[in-house]
């Protein structure tokens, strides 16, 4: 799908308001013609028939009515055009958000979150002028000059001819120059997105920059990037402005020719041409009427140039949206299976291979089972493939070969949402979302009542510190949990898991950044969480793994050892070597 296709495909959403907007615009055009006619009649009568105020009154009062109508039409036109674009923006923003969600974290990992946030906000807003200005203007550009031409031609074919011949140059030049501008503009849009990503990166890394006294140097980088942006934007604008200057030139030229031709005929200047080429006679009334209409004839064509800029901006913005919407969704089963409510959830990894990129296998044939209510610990050096195992189980990625089976059904065949209903996940660095602490705990069960939230917090050993906060559960948090320590954030994430009451819990180094005292507390919470559930723990701590029913030692994408703590400690293998490292030298 190209950006243009995307823009066109959204048009039906705007159709109703667009029609209304064009209708109003056309009505406004008719009013302009009427106004010019009345005005010409008044001036003609006064200048050449010696009419006084009383004589022209029958023309003056309708003029006032037209003034009021035109004001109303202008107001309505603005409204309808905006609403046309609003319908598209709303629908498209929701669609892009949902598509991103369907693409999932595996796709997201390769994108800059700053740029994506930009696409969802400014990118979508960039479509506004295409629907609100460009599309209505395009239709009106065809209709209003045509209407004026139909009125002028029978009255004075010469002026009509001048208009007819100068008008086509305007769209012609617009297209010629516009195409060049478009290419540059798209480059510019990409640069804008890059600039956004860079600023986000700098802001998030500001403390690091400061530590190395590099934060002041960064000001120069920001100056340079902004300056580069200025250069590339001016490149776009110079062309865009040149195109509108050319349009203005033709429009102005057209008006000047019409005025001069009318003026000389009124002066009855004899032109040295043969009789059959002699220009038609013209009255002052017709001449003045045509002169008043001439600027109105070119106006839609001229404003077309301005709106064309809106179209280019929209196309550049749409390019990014198309890139998102065109990213292929992970294939899901056509008729997904739903597990029965009381399904035991026996997990089996059957010779699972996975590669993030071809040729570099993160998992090279992993097989293991998690029986219901079992606690399995995954240990191994960083980069061994532990997180990949978790991502497969969570359904973020699918095996390149081999199968993940749940109660003997391939995970690929299952309804993913139904499957995730049964999961809770405590990641390495849990994210707190904009909202209150209570809302964050409720993430997986928004309907839970306050008592349930408090109970979950208590079981996660989080209730004490939350209740000590001045606003308690209503304390607003966001992003990195402003004001909360890493351990506190993790306990909120564990409370989430408690409230979710899932059958299978995936814990990713959940105790990693707690001091031993809180770690012991969290350990007890995790024990309670594991009691009635299956659990897969990615762990590095002896205390975390010791009580696991089975420990999987993973290295280089393979399971190199498995068994319980006692068995593994007894044999001289990688696990024992790891344990020795962790133990206190006496």
């Amino acid at each position, binding site marked *: 799908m190209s950006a243009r296709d995307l823009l066109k495909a959204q048009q039906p959403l705007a159709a109703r308001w667009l029609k209304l907007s064009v209708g109003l615009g056309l009505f406004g055009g008719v009013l302009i013609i009427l106004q010019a006619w009345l005005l010409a009649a008044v*001036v003609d009568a006064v*200048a050449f028939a010696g009419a006084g105020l009383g004589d022209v009154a029958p023309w003056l009062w309708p003029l*006032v009515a037209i*003034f*009021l109508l035109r*004001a109303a039409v202008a*107001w309505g036109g*603005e*409204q309808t055009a905006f609403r046309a674009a*609003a319908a598209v923006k*709303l629908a498209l923003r929701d669609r892009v958000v949902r598509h*991103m*969600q369907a693409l*999932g974290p595996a796709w*997201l*990992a390769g994108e800059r979150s700053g740029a994506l946030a930009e696409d969802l906000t400014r990118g979508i807003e960039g479509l506004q002028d295409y629907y609100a200005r460009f599309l209505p203007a395009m239709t009106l550009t065809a209709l209003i000059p045509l209407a004026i031409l139909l009125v002028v031609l029978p009255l004075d074919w010469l002026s009509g001819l001048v208009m007819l011949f100068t008008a086509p140059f305007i769209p012609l030049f617009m297209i010629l120059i516009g195409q060049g501008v478009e290419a540059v503009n798209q480059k510019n849009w990409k640069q804008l997105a890059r600039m956004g*990503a860079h600023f*986000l990166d*700098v*802001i998030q*890394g500001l403390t*690091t920059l400061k530590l*190395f*006294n*590099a*934060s002041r*140097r960064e*000001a120069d980088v920001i100056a340079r990037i902004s300056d580069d*942006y200025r250069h590339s934007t*001016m490149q776009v604008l110079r062309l865009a402005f*040149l195109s*509108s*200057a050319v349009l203005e030139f033709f429009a102005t030229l057209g008006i000047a020719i019409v*005025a*001069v031709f009318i003026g*000389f005929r009124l*002066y009855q200047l004899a032109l040295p041409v043969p009789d059959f080429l002699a220009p038609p006679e013209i009255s*002052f009334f017709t001449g003045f009427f045509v002169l008043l209409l001439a600027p109105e004839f070119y106006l839609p064509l001229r404003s077309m140039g301005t709106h064309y800029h809106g179209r280019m901006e929209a196309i550049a913005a749409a390019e990014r949206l198309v890139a998102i919407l065109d990213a292929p969704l992970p294939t899901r089963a056509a008729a997904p299976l739903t597990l029965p409510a009381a399904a035991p959830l026996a997990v089996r990894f059957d010779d699972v291979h996975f590669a993030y990129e071809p040729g570099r296998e993160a998992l090279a044939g992993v097989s293991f089972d998690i029986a219901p209510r079992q606690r399995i610990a995954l*240990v191994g050096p*960083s*980069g061994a493939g532990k997180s990949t195992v978790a991502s497969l189980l969570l359904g*973020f990625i699918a095996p390149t070969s081999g199968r993940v089976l749940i109660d003997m059904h391939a995970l690929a065949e299952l309804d993913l949402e139904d499957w995730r209903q049964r999961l809770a996940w405590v*990641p390495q660095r*849990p994210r707190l*979302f*904009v909202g209150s602490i209570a809302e964050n705990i409720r*993430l997986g069960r*928004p309907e839970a009542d306050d008592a349930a939230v408090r109970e979950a917090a208590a079981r996660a050993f989080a209730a004490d510190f939350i209740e000590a906060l001045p606003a308690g559960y209503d304390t607003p948090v*966001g992003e990195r949990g*402003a004001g909360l320590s890493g351990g506190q954030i993790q306990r909120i994430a564990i409370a*989430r898991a408690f409230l979710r009451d899932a059958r299978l819990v995936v814990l990713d180094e959940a105790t990693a*950044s707690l*001091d*031993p005292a809180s770690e*012991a507390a969290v350990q007890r919470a995790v024990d309670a969480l594991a009691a009635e559930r299956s659990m897969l723990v990615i762990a590095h701590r002896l*205390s975390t793994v010791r009580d696991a029913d089975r420990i999987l030692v993973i290295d280089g994408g393979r399971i190199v050892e498995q068994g319980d703590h006692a068995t593994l400690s007894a044999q001289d293998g990688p696990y024992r070597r790891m*344990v020795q*490292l962790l*133990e*206190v030298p006496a």
Partner: protein
Amino acid sequence: MSELLRLWHLFRPYRRWMLGGFAIALVTLVANVTLMAISGWFITAMAVAGAAGVAMNYFTPAAIIRGSAIARTAGRYFERLISHEATLRQLAGLRVWFYRHLEPLAPARLQQYHSADLLSRIRADVDALDNFYTRVLVPVLVAVTASIGFFLFTALYDLHLALWLLTLLVLAGVALPWLTRWLGAEPGRRLVETDAELRRLAVDGTQGLSELLIYGAADAHARRLDAVSRELIEQQTRMSRIAGLSQGGVGLAANLALFGVLWLGIPRVAGGELPPPQLAMLALFALATFEAVAPLPLAFQHLASTLTAARRLFAIVDAEPAVIDPPGPSPRPAHHGIEIRGLRFAYSGADRPALDGLDLDVPEGQRVAIVGATGSGKTTMFNLLLKFWAPDAGELRLGGAPLADFRGEDLREHIALVSQHTHLFDASIRENLLIANPDATQAQLEQACGTAQIHDFIAALPDGYDTWAGETGVRLSGGQARRIAIARALLRDAPILLLDEPTEGLDAGTERALLDALRVLMAGRTVLMITHRPAVLAEMDKVAVMEQGRLVEQDTHSGLLRGERYPRLLGLDAIPLKHGD
């Protein structure tokens, strides 16, 4: 109003650009009005002369028509060029200005802000300020100057007519904008806020997607974002209603001015006081003059959102940094030992102090470990040592000199920090390393990475040191990122080393390898390390135990193990160790 004044001052460095833009805009406007007025006069005069059969000089008006047509076309082109060039220059300047004010606030004063919120300030709010020049300042100056000129010109023919025209110009240019500004203030403010809210949700929804999906909250988040999107459109609809009002209003005023010309002019033509061509000229002139005030209603509507954006920027710019640098030059520390005496500090809004009379000595070259429960004040102490925050009471000394006498940057020359979270910038690995020392040679980089035991990994990557790191780059594990942090600290080569749980969250094998690297890093430096890993603690010269912001015990690791508090803190008694054999 005070914001307007501040904005005006901010734009002062660009006043030549503004003056140029203003002059060209004025010329363009006058050319256009002239074109219209002369055309009307020309046709009528030619018709009158033609009817009467008298000769007239038609070369001069024809030349004026040609001239103003060219002036209008060229003027509009250059006016746009200049105003955009000026705007973009200002934007670049404003971004740097904002960043320079933002930078001293990190990290202490920025904790309360979502990074997406700060991003929208440096991007969208700074962009919104450009309205001030192109859509507010220049149009207002042009409108005022031109309106006075138009009034004087009309007064040459008819004072009543001139007054009528001026009244309508003021109505369209002042009363209407004032009305739209008044109407637009509230939706304008809410528009900026809703936009920021939408941005926050967008960042949440992308960076937190995994959790949203697992917890079945993705749909709810999408609906929440959709609701804010609707709210944004609601605000925009209100703004567009106001925009429509002002558009219709200006058109109506122009037409009423035309009507005034007819109403007052026709009797005078009939009375023979005003030649007919002048009536046609004044009619078209009156219509054309409203081009001067047409942009004003929109200008004032933009002013509302510009001022909201300005307020949001000023809120950051005006924030007092947590630490203010002393005016004088920084002292030269006599040695690199650290003394802490009676240090007290409380975060604003906290109900108890984070540090409550801390005393600690770290002689030069010693390695001291800090142990304590969450909230005992360990990281706070580091933040004070780095001058990210200023103490409420007590004293910190480096090499005998009070920390308060050091400028932040000079102080941090002496210190390197390795923490749990390593921010890798969206840049190559090389650039990420060079942050620590921009002058380091490739050999130095490789040596540091070799010591940090990350060189082999980097060298094995297809692009080596040019491999892209950060958000879009190669996925580095926690241990690998930590080693890059150690390499950075080595490149930094500072005499004092602060380590904040450098081996947390790493598996045993990685931790051991990292410790080897850390040993090299610690050699010959004054070291303060927050850790709870017994294997690490055993190697330190001294272990200081903190509780509720105070030092409660200090001794060697083995000495402290004989007590009760320390083993409990390390979790060595909470879960009895079951040795496998």
